[in-house]
């Protein structure tokens, strides 16, 4: 891709982490700061996206892959037209995230590091509880694996650091990468 084209291209903040690791909080905060700069930004977060893009798909590896790839496809459409996007998605598999990186030129992988114990303690939607009771079969962190990113652009400690600290770290990284003034 030519330099000029790349400059016009939107960037992707891809937030990955266990359920209840704080992805939505970071996504909301980063969205607010990006909008404060007058940037066009779209947020893909959780159930709403699944309902509209992937109705009927479940949580098997195959279904997750399909769902994630659909999001990557939509992000590609947006970013090539100069719209930035924040994706807040468990996206537990390295291969899927590697595919996203390949497809999206300005890809910023943000890994939310939070222990499983802490995520289970938070459990705002009661998902871990249900998974442990056997009511949910493919819960990431319980039955299904979460493959930690090996080389993310940003690693956030959402267990000990405040959301402001983490949001500012993402903003700073976008600036360091030259995606923001």
């Amino acid at each position, binding site marked *: 891709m030519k330099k000029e084209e790349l400059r016009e291209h939107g960037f992707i903040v891809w937030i990955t982490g266990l359920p209840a690791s704080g992805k939505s909080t970071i996504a909301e905060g980063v969205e*607010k*700061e990006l*909008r*404060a*700069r*007058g940037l066009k930004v779209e947020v893909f977060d959780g159930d709403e996206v699944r309902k509209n893009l992937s109705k009927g798909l479940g949580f098997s590896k195959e279904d997750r892959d399909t769902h994630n790839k659909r999001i990557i496809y939509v992000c590609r459409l947006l970013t090539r037209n100069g719209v930035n996007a924040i994706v807040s998605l468990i996206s537990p598999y390295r291969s899927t995230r590697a595919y996203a990186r390949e497809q999206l030129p300005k890809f910023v992988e943000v890994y939310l590091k939070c222990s499983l114990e802490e995520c289970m303690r938070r459990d705002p939607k009661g998902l871990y509880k249900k998974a442990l009771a056997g009511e949910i079969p493919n819960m990431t962190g319980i039955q299904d694996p979460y493959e930690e990113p090996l080389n993310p652009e940003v690693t956030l400690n959402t267990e000990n*650091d*405040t959301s*402001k*600290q983490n949001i*500012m*770290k993402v*903003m*700073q990284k976008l*600036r360091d990468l030259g995606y*923001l*003034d």
Partner: protein
Amino acid sequence: MSKKKVLVIGLDCAPPELLFDGFINDLPNLKKLLQHGVHARMESSHPPITIPAWMVMATSKNMGKLGLYGFRHRKPGTYNEIWLANSYSVEEKTVWDILGEHGKKVIVIGVPPAYPPRAVNGYLVSCFMTPSTEKDYTYPKELKKEIENLVGEYIIDVVFRTEEKDKMLKQLYEMTEKRFKVIEYLMKNKPWNFIMFVEIGVDRIHHAFWKFFDKQHHLYQPGNKYENAIKEYYQFVDNKIGKLLKLTDKNTTVIVVSDHGAKRMKGAFSINEWLIEKGYLVLKKRPEKIISVQEAEVDWSKTKAWGWGGYHARVFLNVKGREPQGTISPKDFKKIRNQLIEDLKAIRGPNGEKWSTKVYTPEEIYPDGKGDYPDLTIYFDNLSWRSAGTIGYDSSYLPENDKGPDDAVHAQYGVFILYDPKKKRGRKIEDINLLDVAPTILAIMNIPVPPDMEGKIVREVL
């Protein structure tokens, strides 16, 4: 809902010597606040520098906790690479972040570092760090248009290290005129519970004109045409403050603060020339002209320490395993640093006079420090001599700043005045600290003070 409002007037660099004593009788509005309010000297951060002092005040967190040690920071493990602080570098909540979370409307103007502009629950205008007014410098973005409709091109800052004094003064007045016009406009037209602004012009006039008014200054010339430049500017600002006070009601507490003080500069001391002389810094070749140490041909394999300029000096040690060509083994680090501290403290003035140089280790001033702090922080003759980072001189003692004319240095104490129209009293209280401002504002507005704020509520004002 509480009707309490707070207006914080920030006068960058205003020292108690001028505001409480020297000029006060010529500043009727500030005098009224002083006479009917509570005032104190306010201790600044170590070192007392604009960035991050305003954020120490706004967050009630020390520099170490903020991880901000100035405008410039050395990138770890490098000799010459730096990173610059910006608004995203402030990761702790400011008092206006907290007020916003409690539904209070805030207006924040020029409190550094404020570029890039961040989202607040209200309105924000960026600070002197804004690269140009062509950039977006407001939150929301649309506010910029309102400002431009009101004042034309907004002025972010002035070039103050210049010999063109008349031009600088003209720009300075124009900048301040526009700033106060914007503040007045926002106060009148936007909802607010809290306003804080910083007038950077006060700092700029100190640095540009101190030698013209301070009879003790080594470059002072009696009868010069700028003798009253600083006082007249203070009067101008006081008059503008008077206009803002007319827009406040009996529920508005007015607070006047500065981030640090100011005093006359006695000269500049070339830290790196001195380090060369003492054998701590080794060059491959003496420069033929004045250059920065970054441009010099340093023999890092023989160098133990190098320094940076500024109102204070920062010194970095060349440590094995930390710097690319480190020479000091970690086990010798403290021994060599202690020797260097002793040598620095023994420095005398150009005429052999005793200096009261202060040297701080990070453990002393940033016990829980994070990020990229220097190995030593030095105040030559308690900040009266600024530090020059450049080399190529015959002597370490320079009569003027190496980076353009600058007559003043920073001082450890700034000002705090608090005026509550319902509780008139007029008294001076014990010194307070920058850290105390944010909790005091929250207490006034009946908002719980987060337990991790480091300052105390100034009880005398409640």
